[in-house]
């Protein structure tokens, strides 16, 4: 996948010891390593690369790969073909679902291991569980700081209990944050897609017109949905944005080519 994965544990789970973080990191790394080995198109010997080249027929591929393909086809149906597991030249490309599925599996592995408070960020796709911490009025002195720099403090008073917060960065000014959104149940996942002038390009379904959206962030209950719909909305434009917000329980923050913003009601600041 070629991207670093960031893992955070909430204070409640971190109190199990620094080794909890290390073993959680290992769990996540193992899951991503497996997905990368099988599905990375950057690796010539991955199963997906071999299928893409035609060395293996799709019908002879592993159950795992074919299940992945089925998930992608299902999303093709649900987005009226705007999202598709095939490139314009017909070559199979599962990158639209692989990252989300890997994150989901990593999260499930953490939960299975008894960790309820964590966040995973892979390439700007974020999935969270539980909470980062309870908020404290005061910190204890520095000598109780853990070696990694995390501080564990006794609560002088617990104020409100915060949620994991994700900052959506302005695509036109990377030093600027356009939204900071708490990932509250049930929308615990967010994915952001874009149509950059250089770098990765999403084929648009708009008769080779560029996307009206420079960037689209989708907040959803699961990360695969967020990932697929962010991609589909960039590719399909305004019509797809309206269809998806009508049919799916999501929040969307879109940045137009001129810098203006569109947002669903749930992303509006309360008065």
């Amino acid at each position: 996948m070629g991207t670093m994965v960031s893992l955070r544990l909430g204070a409640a789970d971190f109190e199990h010891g620094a080794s909890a973080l290390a073993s959680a990191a290992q769990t996540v790394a193992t899951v991503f390593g497996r997905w990368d080995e099988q599905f990375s198109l950057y690796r010539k010997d991955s199963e997906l690369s071999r299928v893409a080249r035609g060395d293996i027929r799709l019908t002879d591929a592993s159950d795992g790969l074919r299940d992945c393909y089925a998930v992608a086809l299902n999303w093709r149906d649900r987005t009226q073909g705007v999202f598709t597991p095939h490139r314009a030249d017909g070559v199979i490309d599962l990158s639209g679902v692989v990252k989300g599925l890997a994150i989901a599996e990593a999260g499930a592995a953490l939960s299975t291991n008894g960790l309820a408070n964590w966040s995973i960020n892979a390439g700007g796709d974020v999935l969270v569980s539980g909470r980062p911490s309870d908020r404290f009025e005061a910190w204890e002195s520095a000598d109780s700081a853990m070696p990694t720099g995390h501080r564990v403090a006794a609560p002088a008073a617990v104020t409100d209990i915060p949620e994991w917060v994700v900052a959506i960065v302005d695509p036109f000014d990377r030093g600027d944050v356009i939204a900071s959104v708490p990932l509250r149940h049930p929308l615990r996942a967010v994915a952001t897609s874009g149509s950059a002038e250089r770098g990765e390009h999403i084929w648009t379904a708009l008769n080779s017109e560029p996307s009206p959206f420079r960037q689209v962030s989708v907040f959803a209950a699961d990360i695969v949905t967020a990932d697929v719909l962010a991609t589909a909305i960039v590719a399909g434009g305004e019509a797809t944005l309206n269809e998806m917000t009508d049919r799916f329980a999501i929040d969307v923050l879109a940045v137009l080519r001129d810098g203006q913003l569109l947002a669903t009601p749930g992303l509006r600041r309360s008065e």
Partner: protein
Amino acid sequence: MRARAVALAALASVSIVGIGWQLGSQAIDASHSLALSAVRTDPAAVADAAAAAATSAASATAAAQSGTFTGSVVATRFGNMQVSVTIDASTITDITALQLTNHDGRSVQISNRAAPILRSEVLAAQSASVQNVSGATYTTDGYLQSLQSALDSAGF
């Protein structure tokens, strides 16, 4: 045979519709509910169900009910759901989604459409702590990835 089977299917939906209506502010008799549900299903069922309704209930719908009826409030994970329906001579002419309030007390519109919004109006969480960043350029240039790494090191 088919007419009876269709009428029975319409009756199954009637029992659901009937209960729902009785929980609301207006109680509608079963024969009238039958006609309503027949309107919303397929056209083939309409004629059969109408015939069944005509022969079943003693007090047939002599004066067809008209007006606006409010459904019961249904709790969902996003908040409460409530609609009202406008009926004119046994035909549904309009369904109105009522304004709802979610658990935070913010007003939640039925339409989830994305609308133009000023930067000053976009959600900015109260908590000063941001643990994760997301953006379109995350994977294309190293800036956001490095920023995330810095946040991780800082233990934010």
